[in-house]
């Protein structure tokens, strides 16, 4: 150990301030309503707008309304996996205990949203393209993402010693992160049946603003909802781990709730 703390060590200290379960539970309880209610409101407004008030597309007709579910789900499928990769980094390098608990909880939620993305994509593809499924680069890379999620869910629960499961799953999460740029750029690198992105960082969106607004609202709503569900599940997981440690050593309550000195 060197005398002056390195940047890595200092970053670790900062992350570990939130490793204290008591502090996390207090912060989480305060944050929860600010995620849950805006998520519900924005999603309902976005989807209601998309379903009833946004215009039909000139070539796709009313089927374009599937976009307001499919696009947020697709964005969150990737973003959720990116979150998993960040947790993996925190876990492998700084041994952050909360990152492990969060990774356990992000997995199933991310898998559900990826399944929703694939299913709505299929439901959109059948009437528009004329097929439920094709093996083009975009669809296949998202399917790979779905299997990565399933692998992560299985691996993190596969060991009797949870620490080994956390390590193995973290390695899988980091290795699988190479799929994220492949998903993003697949529509540019290769000929695909899937159309390129309408919303890019560089150009104007090739979408009417009357469709962009409901899409933006539902995307924001879905994202907040994803965060709210992951936060609620992680809070529950922290409480469950405290319950377990209380049950295993009922007399040593101090161990279950380490003080602010950590």
């Amino acid at each position, binding site marked *: 150990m060197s005398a002056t703390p390195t940047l890595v060590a200092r970053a670790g200290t900062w992350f570990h301030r939130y490793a204290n379960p008591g502090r996390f539970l207090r912060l989480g309880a305060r944050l929860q309503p600010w995620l849950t209610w805006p998520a519900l409101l924005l999603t309902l407004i976005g989807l209601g707008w998309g379903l009833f008030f946004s215009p039909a597309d000139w070539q796709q007709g009313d089927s374009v309304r599937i976009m307001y579910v499919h696009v947020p789900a697709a964005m969150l499928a990737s973003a959720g996996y990116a979150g998993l990769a960040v947790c993996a980094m925190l876990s492998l390098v700084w041994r952050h205990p909360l990152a492990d608990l969060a990774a356990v909880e992000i997995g199933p939620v991310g898998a559900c949203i990826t399944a929703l993305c694939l299913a709505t994509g299929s439901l959109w593809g059948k009437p*528009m393209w004329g097929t439920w499924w*094709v093996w083009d*680069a975009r669809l296949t890379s998202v399917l790979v993402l779905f299997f990565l999620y399933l692998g992560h869910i299985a691996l993190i629960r596969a060991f009797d010693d949870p620490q080994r499961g956390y390590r193995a799953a973290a390695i899988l999460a*980091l290795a699988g992160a190479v799929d994220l740029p492949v998903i993003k750029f697949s529509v540019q*690198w290769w000929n695909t049946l899937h159309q390129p992105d309408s919303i890019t960082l560089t150009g104007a*969106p090739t979408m009417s603003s*009357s469709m962009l607004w409901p899409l933006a609202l539902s995307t924001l709503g879905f994202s907040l909802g994803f965060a709210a569900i992951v936060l609620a599940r992680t809070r529950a997981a922290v409480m469950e781990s405290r319950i377990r440690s209380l049950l295993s050593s009922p007399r040593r309550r101090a161990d279950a709730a380490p003080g602010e000195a950590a």
Partner: protein
Amino acid sequence: MTRKTRRLWLVIACVACLGAAAALMLKAFSSDIVFFVTPSQVAASAPPADRTVRLGGMVVAGSVQREKRGETPIARFDVTDGQAAVTVRYEGILPDLFREGQSVVAVGTMQKGGFVASEVLAKHDETYMPKEVAEALKKSGKWDPRFGPPPSATSWNSMTVQDAKKGLASSGSAPLPASTGN
């Protein structure tokens, strides 16, 4: 170097190696990952008649001929990528989105007389536009869907259905209020 720093670099190195390996692999398989081949690729070197290929391109305006033999409709149309065109023959019901100027992917084999498709998929582009706006753009002569992609999105993506209806109602060919762009 502390243990944590070492771990960080180890993880970064592993991710970098993995990324490089994946990139190389994707590069190597690039030709297999493409979902379809273009008419100019087919024109340059026709695939053997027994190999199923997917041919992608735009349906040439005015090239669609439909006939009916008994119950099954037969369509014949040219598919182009701007450099070469291939004639496609398809027996069956075309997808709803099929039209002249639309991108399609035809699955089938290259025969002597042209491409014989067993399946035709419609490929829509990334442009999302209300019907009324599209009508207004067509009426004003700014865009004909049969001959290519719509004009730059900035000229219409803030145009509302009301604008479009107003433009259509006032007169067929007058310039649209929203066409000045904003």
